């Protein structure tokens, strides 16, 4: 993957002012943005996905500009072909597992039918062991199942890259280990580039082929992972 991010954005409110100033070049297939919460990791990921518009700068993926303030390029999130895994999974509560996974396969103003069949949906139901819960709604799923559904939904449209926002923080530690392994295997199998943001050093150890450290809205270091630094109290 070649993802180049170089963006700035200032948030101004009555109480505080926060400046996001992030620049890094991702060259490996697995990149981790690592830093404490509130450092601007999520904002960076949202900017890459097109959910947040930077004040200036550029975002390039595989040589194509997703955003470039100088040239007036700002692709809509719909056009970026990036899979985004939300921290709390953001599954559609009114749709069952099948409909959630098939959501992006169907354009138009109507949701997929309850019993929608599509080779891609069946493939992912099978691959992620979701067949038995295909007709269930998100409220009836366990944490691990929710994450698998969110992954399947994001991957079904064959995106260019996978963006993950604290993917394991909502899981208990035993499940966290297992889902890390599953995600790692899946990434290897699909050979899809991924950017993962986390504040958990264990995620860095598992996925950090390249680590970008973010703190206070700035990139502090961009280097191959060589141990993490605990922030001083």
């Amino acid at each position, binding site marked *: 993957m070649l993802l180049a991010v170089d963006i700035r954005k200032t948030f101004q409110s009555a109480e505080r002012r926060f400046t996001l100033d992030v620049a890094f070049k991702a060259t490996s297939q697995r990149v981790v943005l690592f830093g404490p919460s509130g450092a601007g990791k999520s904002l960076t990921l949202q900017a890459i996905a097109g*959910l947040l518009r930077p004040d200036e700068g550029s975002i390039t993926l595989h040589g194509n500009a997703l955003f470039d303030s100088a040239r007036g390029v700002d692709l809509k999130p*719909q056009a970026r072909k990036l899979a*985004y895994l*939300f921290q709390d999974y953001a599954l559609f*509560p*009114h749709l069952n597992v099948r409909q959630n996974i098939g*959501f992006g396969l169907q354009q*138009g*103003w109507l949701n997929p039918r309850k019993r929608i069949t599509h080779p891609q949906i069946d493939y992912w139901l099978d691959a992620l062991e979701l067949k038995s819960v295909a007709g269930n709604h998100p409220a009836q799923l366990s944490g691990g199942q929710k994450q698998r559904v969110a992954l399947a939904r*994001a991957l079904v449209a064959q995106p260019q890259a996978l963006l993950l926002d604290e993917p394991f923080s909502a899981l208990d530690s035993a499940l966290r280990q297992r889902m890390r392994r599953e995600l790692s295997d899946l990434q290897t199998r699909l050979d899809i580039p991924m950017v993962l943001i986390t504040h958990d050093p264990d995620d860095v150890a598992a996925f950090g082929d390249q680590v970008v450290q973010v703190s206070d809205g700035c990139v502090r270091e961009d280097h191959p992972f060589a141990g993490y630094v605990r922030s001083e109290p």
Partner: protein
Amino acid sequence: MQQAWIPLLLSLKVAGWATALNLVFGVAAAFGLSRWRSGARDVVDSLLMLPLVMPPTVLGYYLLVLLGRRGVIGGWLDRFDIQLVFTWQGAVIASTVVAFPLVLKSARAAFEAVDPQLERAARTLGVSETAVFFRVTLPLAARGILAGGLLAFARALGEFGATLMIAGNLPGRTQTLSVAVYSAVQAGDDSTANFLVLVTSVTCVAILLLAGRLVPQHTLLKSG
């Protein structure tokens, strides 16, 4: 007694149309307000909520001024030979205006309760903005909107003041249920009045029960 059904049917027709119109315009306005980030929003919101606090007769007077033959809108419509004063369509407009805030308030609360993360998720999955609205936002707000629609229907069914001002009290043509009750009492026709009051009460209680059932389930569904 046979004649008692005529105002009931007229009321149902008027309230039905008023509700349908509000489900379009009230929901559209509610969605706009819920997404609009500007200082002017509160002013517009207050203006749109005015019908809730203004006396219906005052509203009716405003409508008469606007829609009457010499009114701004009425004068223009008159050129196409369309008259709203003393017609059941005029009653529909009166009921729509009076019930509008009820749909606006419920629908806006429902839209604001929809997790924006879900809309973002839909965008990253490649569906258009219109599809995001119809496939995510609207279904998740549907129960709240429906509850507002039922309240609006009940309010429109009971509309008296504004309707009387603009549509009058023409038996069989513009005499709605609540106006008929008033007329029956004025005329000393107690049996008709009793019957009409009973029908109105039963209908209103049924609607409120239905609305009450819809709202808590909405919050249940959200916690998914």
